[in-house]
């Protein structure tokens, strides 16, 4: 069955138009990821409106290209100018930039690319192997389990996004509130429509994503007006090519371990690439024979960071496709894209859209291979791209945001909603509220409410239904732990601080 699906996928993906589409996605991802300030999430959100005119497979494949390549491309600026293009490339800069200073920039770039591709491919294998199994388990979930699981996903996301768990929870609660806008699907009652008809259909996830991630970033850059400082890059001093497949083979266990860390962390909703790369980097340093080289230009550090970083891509898509719970904010936009293209993420996706989903998985592999070729070209052009002034780049990004907001609804209300969320996102950024929980809550909101109400209909309003089913109880205990532990810890810290100041 699986083989049939994969063979079918191959026939579709090796068509010229699909290959061109994948190359386009990878090229866009490389460009966006390499520009400091433009994140992968922003890239996926901006490209999404361009998929409306495409069929669902082409649209999702295009986004896959942007996602994978954008995640890698953050390494280019991290290595060349010590400015990580994405937050998950911070650890890449720790060893990549010292290597550049040693005149080994081409080696570092090549190694980062190889490690990223390996991480991406390994995560692709797990995506194919684990997703159907998880989907089978998810089929056994009833409304109480689904409610407990989505609720767990939300609390984890809120807990780990940003520096303050409480701000994360406020962001998630606000996202759930925004999700209630529109006609209530169970009772048919309009909610928070303020007499405006367009609000009866809800606020829309994609305009919200465009606003929160892209317009907010444009406002932020307008406020900062920072210019990127491009330092002089020392000429390559390595006479022989130090980075070869032999080096990769020598460190195959490190690459495997780091990629697996990426897959594992990516599959946990909300944890994100930066967490994975920190864990992988730390683990690589612990296990290394030369830990003293870490931070001074270690190939091992660079490989660990990049392979875990791209291991996230496949990992985060596992819960997205199987449970409808996104692993990262980029995956959340993926989820929105699936819905827009008429696909319902979750176990049914594998039952009724098997051909399409396995073709996407196969596309994930091809995209990573394309990235191997285009990535090496991009690294040569990266410095020229960085010379694009912010006063050109961000107005163009703004134009994409506006047209994206318009394309979703076909009316100017979409632009208005994007702008509304842009202002909210900007204020959130300024005050330390993470936008990711809000987006994910917006997406999961209807599912949370629906499963809650269905569960209570089943139990005639008895809340004990959530505490009598083992899977549901397990998830609820996890919710309690992830919510209460940081709050109690903060309260203790606050008490200690008061004691210290008194003394």
């Amino acid at each position: 069955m699986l083989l049939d699906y994969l063979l079918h996928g191959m026939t579709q993906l090796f068509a010229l138009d699909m290959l061109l589409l994948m190359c386009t996605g990878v090229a866009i991802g490389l460009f966006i990821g390499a520009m400091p300030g433009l994140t992968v999430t922003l890239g996926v959100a901006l490209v999404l409106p361009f998929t409306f005119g495409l069929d669902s497979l082409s649209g999702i494949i295009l986004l896959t290209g942007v996602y994978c390549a954008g995640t890698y491309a953050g390494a280019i600026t991290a290595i060349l100018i010590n400015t990580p293009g994405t937050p998950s490339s911070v650890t890449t800069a720790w060893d990549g930039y010292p290597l550049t200073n040693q005149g080994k920039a081409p080696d570092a770039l090549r190694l980062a690319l190889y490690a990223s591709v390996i991480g991406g491919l390994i995560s692709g294998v797990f995506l194919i192997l684990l997703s159907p199994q998880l989907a089978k388990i998810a089929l056994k979930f009833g409304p109480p389990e689904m409610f407990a699981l989505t609720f767990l996903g939300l609390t984890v996301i809120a807990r780990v996004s940003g520096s303050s768990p409480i701000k994360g929870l406020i962001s998630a609660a606000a996202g759930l509130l925004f999700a209630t806008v529109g006609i209530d699907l169970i009772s048919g009652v309009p909610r928070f429509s303020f007499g405006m008809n367009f609000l009866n259909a809800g606020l829309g996830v994609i305009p919200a994503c465009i606003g929160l991630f892209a317009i907010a970033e444009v406002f932020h850059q307008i406020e900062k007006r920072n210019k990127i400082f491009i330092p002089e890059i020392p000429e390559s001093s390595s006479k022989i090519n130090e980075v070869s497949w032999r080096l990769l083979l020598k460190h195959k266990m490190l690459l495997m371990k780091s990629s697996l860390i990426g897959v594992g962390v990516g599959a946990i909703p909300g944890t994100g690439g930066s967490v994975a790369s920190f864990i992988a980097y730390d683990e690589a340093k612990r296990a290394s024979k030369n830990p003293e080289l870490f931070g001074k230009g270690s190939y091992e550090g660079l490989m660990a960071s990049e392979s875990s970083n791209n291991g996230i891509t496949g990992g985060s898509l596992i819960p997205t496709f199987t449970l409808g719970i996104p692993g990262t904010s980029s995956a959340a936009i993926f989820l929105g894209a699936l819905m827009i293209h008429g696909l319902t993420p979750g176990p049914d996706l594998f039952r009724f859209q098997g051909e399409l989903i396995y073709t996407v998985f196969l596309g994930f592999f091809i995209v990573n291979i394309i990235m191997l070729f285009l990535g090496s070209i991009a690294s040569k052009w990266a410095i020229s791209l960085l010379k694009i002034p912010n006063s050109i780049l961000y107005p163009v990004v703004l134009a994409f945001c506006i047209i994206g907001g318009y394309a979703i609804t076909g009316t100017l209300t979409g632009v208005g909603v994007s702008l509304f969320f842009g202002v909210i996102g900007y204020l959130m950024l300024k005050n330390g509220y993470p936008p990711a929980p809000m987006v994910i809550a917006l997406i999961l909101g209807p599912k949370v409410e629906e499963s809650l109400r269905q569960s209570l209909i089943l139990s005639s309003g008895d809340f004990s239904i959530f505490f009598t089913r083992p899977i549901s109880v397990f998830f609820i205990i996890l919710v309690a732990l992830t919510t209460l532990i940081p709050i109690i810890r903060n309260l203790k810290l606050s008490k200690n601080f008061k004691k210290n100041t008194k003394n």
Partner: protein
Amino acid sequence: MLVILYKYAPSICTALIGLAIFILVPFQIDLSHMRGSNLSGVDARTLPYLLSFSIIFLSLLEIILINRKKTKESNANKKPQYLNMLRVCITFLSIVLWILLVPIIGFIISMIILLAFVMMVMGNRKILQLILVPVITSVLLNYIFTTFLGRTLPTGIFF
């Protein structure tokens, strides 16, 4: 006093927003037309009530937990740059104006004006760039959306 307000302002604002939503719920969710028994005990108002209450509760908790030392340090470093914030406000207003003008003058012209304006707000004063970038971006986007993706963009009195 101002420093204290600055420190607590975001949490106070979120608490007030939560309170406003809590008060708005019965006015914005009309259940008077609902008939029959509610089996679940949860209706269309339950989640908004719960969430707005959570926002109030969490905001108050945040106010209690604010780490004084940290905020004092960050306030010392952070000086609000009003001119830069004004630039953001101007950009916001220009997008609002774009929304109002686009049905009259059409997508291409309005986008050219908006882009050139935002570029100027961001400090670009090079005439060639101020002309070329908005024109190329607007025409290209219009072409991609209308020709390749089959979407119609607003046209005004000109085109």
